[in-house]
């Protein structure tokens, strides 16, 4: 039974097709003509999160709701307890994997680009380029289009479909790295730093702190692209999602468990572990490890220092400042809402570019600091930065 649309999915599709076909939208949509309700009349910020009123559903709710559209599998976006969940097949698989019994019983997969009518809203999911399965939610209602981008990035990532800019009237964006000090250098240069250190200290293990979902697999694919073909050793918490990525066709090469038994084998090896474990007792099984961390926060020295990181790698699954500002240009929305992160700077920038912008101040997303996530032991489950 479909809980999302009163009719069948096929019917929604049939209804949607001609509209999509005839809808070559202007890159810079005009201001709303009178008579069209402004989107802030039908999308509301509630304690539960962003609520799409005419569709009767929330997007990435932080508290349990009746119906949730989930953009991606990171634990601050995909939370347990929602009655009905709609997401991409990969996101649903990730949720099932991570939540186990707490995974939602009632789910509906929706492929990228496939339109569906929910209540009085036409909904599409479009790749966000953040992690496997991550999606932007494209909402159309009463003649306006709103895009809720979830978390996203713009650079190449072999583990997921690339971000697709969708022209819209209102663009809802994150701002995790919404300050001009955050400019992620090219990924391959960062990976070369790691390989260089491994060549310099061949007797030391290199342990890279990386979130289980997305960052871990991305680092591995980057290493493979740089020609590293030795086995990569994994902390136990990283294995299930690597297997899942494999099922979705992401090639990761040879992976081995970094068990205590493998102590000798781990000398000089490359080991991936959740950020919290990389600097904790778990890492004692490694011989004199070089602690590396793959995160956008590593751009700021003092952050890296706080974590006791010796080798910071600026590799992020979030858009940096240039990607954020470029995306605002690409979607051409006359209005931007900023959900979470360092929203003040992005609002300031957008305003100066003649875009109406405001912060939604949604709560519950993106612990302000990496270390807080680590303290709570979210390393294994948390989202990547």
């Amino acid at each position: 039974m479909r809980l999302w649309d009163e009719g069948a999915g096929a019917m929604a599709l049939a209804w949607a097709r001609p509209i999509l076909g005839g809808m070559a939208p202007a890159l810079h949509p005009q201001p709303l003509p009178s008579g069209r309700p402004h989107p802030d009349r039908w999308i509301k910020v509630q304690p539960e999160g962003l609520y799409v009123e005419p569709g009767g559903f929330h997007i990435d709710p932080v508290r349990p709701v009746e119906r949730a559209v989930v953009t991606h599998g990171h634990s601050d976006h995909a939370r347990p307890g929602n009655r009905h969940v709609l997401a991409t097949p990969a996101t649903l698989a990730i949720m099932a994997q991570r939540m186990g019994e707490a995974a939602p019983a009632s789910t509906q997969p929706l492929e990228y680009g496939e339109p569906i009518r929910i209540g009085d809203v036409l909904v599409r999911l479009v790749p966000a380029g953040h992690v496997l399965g991550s999606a932007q939610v494209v909402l159309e209602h009463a003649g306006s289009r709103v895009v809720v981008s979830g978390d996203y990035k713009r650079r190449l990532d072999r583990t997921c479909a690339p971000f697709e800019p969708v022209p819209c009237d209102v663009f809802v964006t994150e701002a995790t790295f919404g300050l001009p000090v955050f400019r992620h250098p090219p990924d391959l240069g960062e990976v070369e730093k790691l390989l260089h250190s491994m060549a310099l200290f061949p007797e030391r293990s290199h342990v890279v702190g990386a979130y289980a979902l997305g960052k871990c697999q991305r680092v591995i694919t980057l290493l493979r692209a740089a020609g590293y073909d030795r086995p990569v050793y994994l902390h136990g918490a990283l294995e299930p999602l690597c297997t899942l990525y494999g099922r979705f066709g992401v090639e990761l090469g040879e992976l081995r468990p970094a068990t205590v038994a493998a102590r000798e084998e781990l000398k000089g090896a490359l080991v991936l572990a959740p950020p919290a474990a990389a600097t904790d007792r778990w890492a004692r099984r490694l011989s004199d490890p070089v602690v590396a961390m793959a995160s956008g926060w590593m751009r700021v020295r003092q952050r890296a220092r706080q974590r006791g990181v010796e080798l910071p790698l600026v590799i992020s699954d979030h858009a940096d400042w240039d990607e954020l500002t470029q995306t605002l240009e690409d979607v051409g929305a006359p209005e931007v809402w900023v959900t979470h992160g360092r929203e003040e700077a992005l609002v300031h920038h957008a305003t100066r570019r003649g875009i109406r912008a405001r912060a939604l101040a949604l709560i519950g997303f993106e612990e302000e600091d990496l270390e807080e996530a680590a303290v709570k032991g979210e390393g294994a489950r948390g989202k990547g930065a």
Partner: protein
Amino acid sequence: MNRFAALIDALVFMPSRNGKIRLLIDHFAETPDPERGWALAALTGSLSFREAKPAAIRQLVATRVDPELFALSYDYVGDLAETVALIWPERPERANSLPPSLDEVVRGLHDVKRGQVMELVEGWLDTLDASGRFALLKLITGSLRIGVSARLAKTALAEWGKLDIAEVEEVWHGLTPPYAGLFAWAEGRGERPAAGHGAGFRPMMLSHPLEEEDRTALDPAAYCAEWKWDGIRVQLVARDGQRRVYSRTGDELSGAFPDVADHMLFDAVLDGELLVARDGVVAPFNDLQQRLNRKSVTAAMLRDGPAWVRLYDILFDGGEDLRGLPFSERRARLERWYEAVRPRRMDLSPLVPFQGWEQLAALREGARENGIEGLMLKRRDSPYLGGRPKGPWFKWKRGALTLDTVLMYAQRGHGKRSSFYSDFTFGVWRGAELVPVGKAYFGFTDAELVELDRWVRNHTVRKYGPVREVSAGLVLEVAFDSVHPSTRHKSGLAMRFPRIHRIRWDKPAPEADRLETLARMVVGADAAA
């Protein structure tokens, strides 16, 4: 510049002291003169470029970056050099020009005409990458703050050259960057540089705090006691016709204290406490504070806050080095010297006779007058040793005053604490309103800091840039050494050495102390009232 930048980067990320020493040794061994010498000078704070101060750097970045975005970024990053290094917009067309060497930078800054410094710096910033920009900015602002003290850098040099650190300290003040002679000595290619004593600084002898268990193990008969005066430790050097006043880290204060330097009409090296005193009565530390951190001094300051030095020790009498003598003999020499010379604006710090620890404890408790911070204990047989040897000297501060205050504002810290709200402004009740009485940023554990930070975030009522105002709900028991009238604070009072003593999660804010209570703690409050 690249090597220096790589060193700075590696040092920033190296958590262990030994690891830092290893990195420094590598650098000294692998880098040629004069680059390594400039690096050592930078790490020991021996370079200063007058024209490249933080204000000028801010001005420069304002020409390239939106000021609002810069302000938000600086607030987030918490370090000026790092913010500028990261935010600096790169010009692709400059990417191929060669970045400057450290030698070029140092000489360039030295030779450049006033007014053209920032132009030079701007050109360099355009050719360097983020690491290079960071190192350059750290260098020209003269405050590296990368977790390497001057002492650690010298220790690394000593270890690398198999030298005695005390000997390095001894010759240090006769040296000038880029230290070619010092490196030659360390590599066994040259003689030990002349101690260059003259009017140079000699490493000062410092004390450890006295712990309860120390005291019970000490023999009272082996120690002399004297008051620990509440000023700043100084070394007075009058040699070869030169007169210098040094802080305990070897920074020169002579320019700011001509009223001391002008009276050093003798040939000796002395150790003492710099104070402000009027008619022989020591003024609160706050009065001395007005005269510190200044390169020069006004006539009004000389009149209103006359300086005084209370002498503790004598290191040289003429050319005679007394540092090897036991304390009791040096003390006798100091007394004889003082009788003979009678220098103006100076007196002797009297010894405090005592029979046993109990009597001394009672004396310490009774001492509430201005200018006394506590007691010093010095072994009678201790020679004067540079550094902080454990055992011969102890400081025994008098008990702190405490007050229950209410947290009012919090600000993010800097450096390692840049993600935490770690600077706390607290107040007490005046009628129904809170008035701020002080600010503290230590006295809590790392775990408590995490709790405090969370409390601040959850109780913010207003934000002013980096400062958050919080609701009146958390009581902080603050310890401080003393309290003095102050015109700079709205409450009219200023605390000395305030620190968080305890976090009173249990205590309701309305039960915190009142301003009247604090006012009664002012030294001499009864007499004045």
